[in-house]
């Protein structure tokens, strides 16, 4: 049986989890103090996901860059594909918070949206 070792992020305790795997199936989670730990352990081993936050260059804005995020979580292994897809993108001011910057980033089905308003200069 394969074992994976994780730190639970559910709360400040940071329980050391051991997730026992049989192939792609989670057999058991050990070391958790509460239910959150079990759910996290299973999710993090089978299909870990992350929200990515980064910046995109702005043309003609009061600031030279705008902060952006993935509208929803994307698979963890796509993090770098996601930021690479944003390289070289320049968006014209004004940019509104919530505005879509890039559709379907790195074939994840998730859009990149602005998290800040940047007015035109």
């Amino acid at each position, binding site marked *: 049986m394969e074992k994976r070792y994780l730190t639970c992020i559910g709360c400040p305790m940071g329980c050391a989890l051991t997730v026992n795997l049989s192939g792609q199936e989670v057999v058991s989670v050990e070391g958790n103090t509460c239910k959150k730990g079990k759910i996290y352990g299973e999710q993090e081993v089978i299909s870990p996901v992350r929200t990515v936050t980064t910046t995109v260059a702005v043309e003609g804005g009061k600031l030279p860059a705008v902060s952006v995020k993935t509208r929803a979580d994307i698979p963890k292994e796509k993090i770098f594909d996601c930021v690479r897809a*944003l390289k070289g993108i320049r968006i014209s001011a004004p940019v509104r918070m919530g505005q879509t910057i890039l559709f379907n980033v790195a074939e994840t089905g998730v859009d990149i949206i602005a998290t800040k308003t940047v007015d035109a200069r």
Partner: protein
Amino acid sequence: MYDVVIIGAGVTSTACARELSRYQAKICVLEKEEDLCCGTSKANSAIVHAGYDAREGSLKAKLNVRGNEMMEKLAQELDFPFKRNGSLVICLHEEDFPRLKELYDRGIKNGVRDLRILDGEQVKEIEPNISDQVYAALYAPTAGIVCPFGMNIAFGENAAANGVEFYFDTEVNGIIRTEEGWEISTSRGTFQTRWIINGAGVYADRIHNMVSGKNLHITARRGEYCLLDHSAGDHVSHTVFALPGKYGKGILVAPTVHGNLLLGPTAIDTENKEGTCTTREGLDQVLEKAGMNVKNLPMRQVITSFAGLRAHEDGDDFIIGEPEDAPGFLDCAGIESPGLTAAPAIGEMAAGILKEKMGLKEKADFISERKGILDPKTLDKDAYRKLIKEQPAYGNIICRCEKITEGEILDAIHRPLGAKSLDGIKRRTRAGMGRCQSGFCAPRTMEILARELQVDMADITKSGGHSGIIEGVNKDSL
């Protein structure tokens, strides 16, 4: 063909430049760094010494006392911060008293005015935070504190206003004798000149040895300091020295003209003339020894530490004069403490020598005064309002800690020999010198520099050369 080339743009060299600019002569200054005040002049105790330290009859003693006398008038003419706050040399133990008396006697011989010995009670009265164990102190009311950047930059700007040319990022690589004088080869071309003044600080031996067989040897003697926030600035009002004794020269505690508190220096000889690093041992020593004479030092208020290199010559005195085998070459070498105090007097002496040897004639149109950067905090409210109306940049605070406005930063950039880097701005305006150490203002100051100098943000440096601050833009390497 120059009449005089001055090597170095520290306080000694610029004092010489300013004094020589009284005369009809073509003069230039060559500096290897990007700005004035980049070596020993920027990292020292900022003290105007009274003059009791140096051996009687030495140049150090003579020029210290003379420089001290000149300081008031100069600070007025050239508009740099100077304050006669007086100094105390603290004697903690009765058995050390003879050595305090020795200092007093030497001071009297050197011509220091108003020197007095105070008993313990008298010391505590004028300086309540002195150690309870104080036995006596040597009180020198003529001692003072000065802004070393302010003085150095004032000399430079005034010299420039009087026609002295300045070449920065220009390192001297070699000097050869010519029929009329000297040819100096530098990283930026060659310079022909009749006379050379060597004010190269810790490198003065290297420059000297290019022309003279009577070699000099200068040791870089590192001194480390800790600077405390304004909130600690009135912990003492006098400059407090330790009595030199079995534990070495001791650590001074001094207010600065800008209201900080300065502790230091250590003294470590190094062969590295660029070795301005601080060390764990050095900083520990500063913090430990500073507390020997002054109690309750608020060490949590340290905002920065730094190290400077003293240019210590083997003969332990200033060397000012022509080497026998190199006429037309004037050394101003071995300028360590009390070099800052003595700088005006060194300038006067060097200019005097050249005036005589070269037969220089005074200019009719010498400009003796220079205005520093206006600090709007010194204005009354109505004058401040009027200023902002005329120049709104004075209403825009860039450095929060020192409350420095965009107006002052613009002045620093656009005046003669203006600032080109963050450190250049800092030395001229104090922006970035406060308790957050430029955390908040650095990006904004960089923005102003880039805009005013019409360069890219990536070209803005901390202190010229390869000290760029921005390495690229986001994702450029992905």
